[in-house]
């Protein structure tokens, strides 16, 4: 069965250069009721786009974080996703094509994770869209407390809050809110959410064919990003209880929510962490958040913003208010997130 084209790494791939495109085609084949894949423009678009009179949400970023973003296209969440190559920002052409494809006349919101590449490419796209007469609002996601937000960094990265923001802003847009309100809500989610990630292993991008970094036996990387960027520091592997403690402390101390605040707890797997471990970790985190005086009233546990098959997890805590909670609860129907529909 071995052939000349046999890939060196062990992954379900044909030509590694085609991985993203073939995967998106598979996504569209599985979910043609929800979305379509425009292979020329390299974008994933809601099946019924453009929805006249509805604010449209466009997100995008490197691939390798599935289900983010293609898996969140559908009713009540994204109108379009622009997937770049693995761990590489998409290009402005994709964002412009997506913006044009979903513009229903009520304005388009670009959801941009704060990475230099994403920010610059979305900026060029927004300029192009403005040239074509489409109102674009950009919302920056930068919730990763592992990065210091100072003059000496590119600012905090956008990580887990992206999922929550896309759900909540998507619900607002679906309910008919105008572009200012959708934008404001999205920014509120970002302002009230904090995240911190931990990697137990590296991961192998198809085009590279070898692991992004080495993580020696018995060590973990704390403050990891979602692109396989090394984290802030390495430590000896410790128990789930202790790792949960590091995550909770980092997030809670930065969020500074008032005592008794109601929160949404998002425990996210990086791709290679079994659900058995993820729920075990959730149990630890839930307890420690309560000990820290917060009240988890909603949660999301699963692998929603990943780094290929990396073993690891991130914690995102979002401070809720009634409006955010009810938008979170609103129906959503996408390949990866679905309820009430």
């Amino acid at each position, binding site marked *: 069965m071995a052939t000349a084209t046999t890939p060196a790494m062990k992954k379900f791939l044909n030509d590694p250069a085609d991985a993203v495109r073939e995967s998106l085609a598979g996504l569209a084949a599985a979910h043609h009721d929800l979305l379509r894949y425009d292979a020329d423009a390299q974008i994933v678009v809601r099946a019924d786009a453009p929805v006249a009179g509805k604010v449209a949400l466009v997100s995008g970023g*490197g691939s390798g974080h599935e289900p983010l973003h293609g898996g969140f296209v559908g009713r009540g969440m994204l109108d379009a996703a622009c997937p*770049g*190559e*693995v*761990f*590489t*920002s*998409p*290009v*402005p*052409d994709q964002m412009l094509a997506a913006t044009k494809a979903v513009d229903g006349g009520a304005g388009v919101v670009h959801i941009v994770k704060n*990475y*230099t*590449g994403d920010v*610059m*490419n979305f*900026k*060029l796209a927004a300029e192009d869209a403005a040239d074509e007469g489409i109102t674009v609002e950009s919302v920056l996601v930068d919730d990763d407390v*592992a*990065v*210091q937000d100072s*003059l*000496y*960094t*590119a600012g905090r*990265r956008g990580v887990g809050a992206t999922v929550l923001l896309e759900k909540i802003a998507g619900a607002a847009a679906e309910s008919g809110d105008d572009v200012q309100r959708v934008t404001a809500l999205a920014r509120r989610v970002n302002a009230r959410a904090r995240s911190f990630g931990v990697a137990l292993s590296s991961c192998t*991008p198809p*085009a*590279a064919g070898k692991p*992004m*970094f080495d993580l020696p036996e018995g060590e973990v990387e704390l403050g990891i*990003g979602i*692109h*396989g*960027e*090394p984290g*802030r*520091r390495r430590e000896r592997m410790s128990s789930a209880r202790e790792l949960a403690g590091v995550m909770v402390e980092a997030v809670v101390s930065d969020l500074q929510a008032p005592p008794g605040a109601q929160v949404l707890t998002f425990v996210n797997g990086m791709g290679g962490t079994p659900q058995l471990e993820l729920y075990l970790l959730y149990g630890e985190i839930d307890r420690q958040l309560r000990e820290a005086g917060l009240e988890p009233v909603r949660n999301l546990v699963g692998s929603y913003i990943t780094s290929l098959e990396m073993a690891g997890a991130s914690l995102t805590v979002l401070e809720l208010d009634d409006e955010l909670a009810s938008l979170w609860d609103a129906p959503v129907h996408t390949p990866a997130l679905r309820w009430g529909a």
Partner: protein
Amino acid sequence: MITEPIVRASTITVWLTQAGADVRARGDYLTQLDAAIGDGDHGINMTRGFDAVDKALAGQGDGVLPGRLLILAGKTLVSTVGGASGPLWGSALRRAGRALGDVEQFDGPQLALALDAAIDAIVELGAAAPGDKTMVDALVPASRALHAELDAGSSLDQALAAAAQAALEGAEATVPMQARKGRASYLGERSIGHQDPGATSAAIILAALARSVGESG
């Protein structure tokens, strides 16, 4: 001054083809540098972009103006690279092309102005200052050397060779820097001790420029 090399459209084509070949040849090395302090795709990104530039240039007939070629190459990079380097290099070439306007050929001082326009575009978009451990740390010394040599009356060949050398040294000088822009900045002090991939590819591209002008001169 009659032996002074002049830059023409064909020089631009030779340069970009050369630069692409060099970036491709050193792609793994660039990716490795990026894996240490970034996300390990810089060689792949730049290779993808220059592959597309090759194709775009191949589609151009004779007689296209050099400025137009640069704009085309810039647009191609923007449209195919993604990441941080795509919009930065793409905007740089587009701005350089626009700075040249409709000239059919140009000399050293004009080339230096085009390089400055390119750097302006990069700084406008990315807001990096020298010392931030980015491609700017290769490009700014290169521009400074180019101006200095030309002002001192050196030939364009010599001036570009000095610029390429300055870019190389600028890239090497990023090793002890702590990154303040791009992904590497997330690492804080852990970014120290590694050479910046974007500065390294910039040095490769400037070396190709020096060689190309020398050859076609």
